[in-house]
């Protein structure tokens, strides 16, 4: 395969609101998600798999009696650790299911039931009789047990950082803000529950495992599963033509994907369908850890920071480590000569935490941006001014220049649109009927990321059309549409002349739809392949010639720090008698590089704002430490923002093109919308009521003290 040095794209379709190329399929329901494939796709007469989950948090399966389940009509098999096909230990204990009798958390998979129908499988699962040898467990995150220092934090960042002398600077500071901020457990809850269709077949004497999986990255699923089953990567084929959201929870294969493959291993080629239930998702498909952030800011009387300390405590699971990088945005956000960050974990006997939209930035910026609001109040200056005072010249973490840091422009533009100038400076200044009214602001940031390991293929078809292929996944972001636009511009044809194929491991490799890196990573590969194709085959190629290429690294880019920025403005109304919080206005202004498709980008940014609002007001998973599981495990008790919760919402962006970062000039937009949003709402509730709430969500009781 060829490496191509990419040149900036001459944009024509990029920058325009092309309607989603898969819109018709979605509004009619014709789009087929992971367990909606039938005979045409090779899914013939499937069996149904139901998961049996542990009812204790730690211990051993003492006895598992399948008899009653097996005698239930329709049940075909019960698979547990005693009869499950063997897996190879790849060091990921989340995936190493049904290999021994150990139970590491409540909700762990202890058996699978296969049946002719979903009803029989489900009934069979209820009839599997499991008893346990129970061992004591710990499932509660506290300040006194989150003391373990991981080697690194997600994805591979330093656990701790230190510059200067924070303690001396704090001791000498004229103003100190010193508080603890908390965010709760949160579950991603994509609307399509995780689901997998799997079957094993013989391909010219070689076993092949085929899957339709609801995943953010088909190649990543192969990387996880092939070694577990002792297969070469080519022996696993994963497709994900439509995925009903992920928000990080489908970024890596979880246990149910292995369960489907294991179950299918026993059926002599018959496909199996495994649809995780909404309730099961709360134990099996990842979640955001709760976080405790101890923030200490030292400043001069005018609000200039002299010291920043962000000490984080959070949890991981005993069976697999995941350390959320909660203090990472604090390392680069504002200038201060003395700075310290740290992460300490409690290792609990609980479900495995994982990525949830803007891991690190979302909880970390909640803490930091509420603290900045407190600093503004303590210094008697405007919240915008405190951010202006502390704008760094270079990235405080790396010392590199920012490629394009336009935070202040975002703040100023938002202030203008929100009529910030007429805001009363003090809190509890405005009453409208039964409601206290206030406004708040917070900054947002997210690193610009481009993943290695992407390539794309371009082939000429008849009539000036081109087939473009890359194994990336569209989880709702609009990737299918924007990659079509990028390919069209890169080949200098119309979007209608592009046949784009994605979401299949038989296509050139693509990185995960995560870290807001998709368009940057895949789009760059497509531009590389297209530019190489033109260099090899010219403007009027014969039909059927093709080029596969990836983008060469650009050493010039390494001298910069690449981040996106934004400013979130919220109006909050807090009911004087009930404490209910409503957010009648929410606005985000962003600097995210060039926007490839304004219509889909707007939906991405607004969707992030909605999720941030939802985290601000509602979302909290309640774990009962006595039992070790989340008791609010459905969409009635884990409320996500519904339509009536979302009022006037808007997002806009600064015109720009970051051609140092990608040939498209784009930087990634999937996550920044959730960052800072809850802080802006919290700051607005303070301005409305004078009550400072330092923990999410901002429930009514917190304003009635």
């Amino acid at each position: 395969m060829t490496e191509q040095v990419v040149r900036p794209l001459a944009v024509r379709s990029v920058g325009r609101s092309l309607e989603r190329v898969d819109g018709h399929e979605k509004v009619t329901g014709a789009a087929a998600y992971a367990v909606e494939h039938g005979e045409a796709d090779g899914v013939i007469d499937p069996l149904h798999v139901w998961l049996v989950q542990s009812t204790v948090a730690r211990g051993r399966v003492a006895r598992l009696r399948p008899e009653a389940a097996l005698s239930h009509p329709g049940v075909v098999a019960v698979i547990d650790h005693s009869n499950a096909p063997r897996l190879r230990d790849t060091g990921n204990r989340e995936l190493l299911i049904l290999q021994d009798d150990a139970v590491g958390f409540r909700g762990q998979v202890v058996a699978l039931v296969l049946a002719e129908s979903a009803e029989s499988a489900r009934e069979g699962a209820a009839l599997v009789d499991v008893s346990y040898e129970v061992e004591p467990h710990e499932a509660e995150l506290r300040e006194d047990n989150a003391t373990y220092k991981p080697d690194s934090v997600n994805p591979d960042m330093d656990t701790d950082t230190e510059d200067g002398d924070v303690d001396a600077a704090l001791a000498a500071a004229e103003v100190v803000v010193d508080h603890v901020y908390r965010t709760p457990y949160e579950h991603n809850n994509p609307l399509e529950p995780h689901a997998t269709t799997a079957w094993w077949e013989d391909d010219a004497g070689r076993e092949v495992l085929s899957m339709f999986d609801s995943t953010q990255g088909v190649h990543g699923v192969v990387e996880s599963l092939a070694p577990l089953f002792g297969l070469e990567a080519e022996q696993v084929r994963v497709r994900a033509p439509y995925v009903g959201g992920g928000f990080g929870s489908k970024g890596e294969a979880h246990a149910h994907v292995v369960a489907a493959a294991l179950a299918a291993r026993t059926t002599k080629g018959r496909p199996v369908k495994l649809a995780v239930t909404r309730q099961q998702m709360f134990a099996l498909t990842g979640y955001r850890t709760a976080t405790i952030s101890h923030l200490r800011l030292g400043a001069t009387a005018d609000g200039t920071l002299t010291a920043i300390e962000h000490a984080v405590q959070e949890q991981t699971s005993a069976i697999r480590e995941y350390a959320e990088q909660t203090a990472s945005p604090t390392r680069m956000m504002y200038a201060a000569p003395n700075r310290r960050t740290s992460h300490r974990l409690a290792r609990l006997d609980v479900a495995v935490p994982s990525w949830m939209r803007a891991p690190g930035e979302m909880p970390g910026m909640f803490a930091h941006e509420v603290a900045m609001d407190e600093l503004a109040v303590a210094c008697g200056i405007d919240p915008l001014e405190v951010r202006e005072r502390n704008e760094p010249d270079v990235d405080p973490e790396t010392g590199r220049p920012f490629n394009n840091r336009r935070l202040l422009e975002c703040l100023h533009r938002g202030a203008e649109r929100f009529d910030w100038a007429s805001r009363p400076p003090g809190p509890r200044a405005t009453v409208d009927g039964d409601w206290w009214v206030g406004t708040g602001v917070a900054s947002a940031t997210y690193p610009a990321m481009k993943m290695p390991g992407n390539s794309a293929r371009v082939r000429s078809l008849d009539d000036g059309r081109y087939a473009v292929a890359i194994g990336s996944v569209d989880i709702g972001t609009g990737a299918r549409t924007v990659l079509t636009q990028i390919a069209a511009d890169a080949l200098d044809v119309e979007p209608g002349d592009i046949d784009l194929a994605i979401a299949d491991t038989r296509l050139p490799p693509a990185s995960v739809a995560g870290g807001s890196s998709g368009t940057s990573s895949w789009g760059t590969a497509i531009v590389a392949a297209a530019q190489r194709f033109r260099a090899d085959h010219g403007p009027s190629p014969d039909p059927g010639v093709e080029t596969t290429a990836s983008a060469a690294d650009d050493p010039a880019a390494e001298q910069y720090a690449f981040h996106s920025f934004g400013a979130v403005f919220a109006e909050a109304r807090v009911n004087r008698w009930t404490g209910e919080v409503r957010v009648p206005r929410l606005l985000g202004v962003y600097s995210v590089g060039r926007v490839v498709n304004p219509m889909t980008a707007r939906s991405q940014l607004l969707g992030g704002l909605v999720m941030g609002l939802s985290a601000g007001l509602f979302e909290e998973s309640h774990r009962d430490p006595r039992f070790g599981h989340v008791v609010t495990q459905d969409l009635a008790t884990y409320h996500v923002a519904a339509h009536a919760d979302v009022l006037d919402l808007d997002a806009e962006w600064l015109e720009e093109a970051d051609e140092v970062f990608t040939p498209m000039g784009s930087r990634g937009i999937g996550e920044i919308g959730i960052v800072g949003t809850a802080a802006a709402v919290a700051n607005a509730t303070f301005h409305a009521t004078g009550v400072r709430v330092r923990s999410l969500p901002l429930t009514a009781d917190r304003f009635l003290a």
Partner: protein
Amino acid sequence: MDAHISLTVDGTERSLDVDTRTTLLDALRERLAVTSPKKGCDHGQCGSCTVLLDGRRHLTCLTLAVAHDGAEVVTAAGLADDGLHPVQQAFLDHDGYQCGYCTPGQVCSAVGMLDEAKQGHPSHVTDDLVGDVDLDDDEIRERMSGNLCRCGAYPGILAAIREAATA
């Protein structure tokens, strides 16, 4: 135990034997391969399984198939039988979706809701319980709140329904 039922689904008569435990949603998806209605929760908490059942919006995960012998079911696929329904076109025009998983349910719910409003059914936010319904933004938001969209496409959904309501 199985029972024999007939359903008219998107204009086609279908008869089938269903396990009496089978929800209408599973009968559609698993027995009849009608996968336009989605399963987001199976508990009546998300709205993704919404269809028009005998003309009214209904959560198919919350009802047993055996209770609907002879019923007429219209899914989002059926609404597009003669080209896209105006509500569906408006969803495209206003990008009222991202992943698409809630979308067929949103579309059916919107079509059913517009009809309810036309018939004067009040909602929780209606001031005048007997007069005509003025389908303003708050009314649309309230009446569509049984359909969760985790992608947060509510602004586009609102704009789409507003347009379809006045078309």
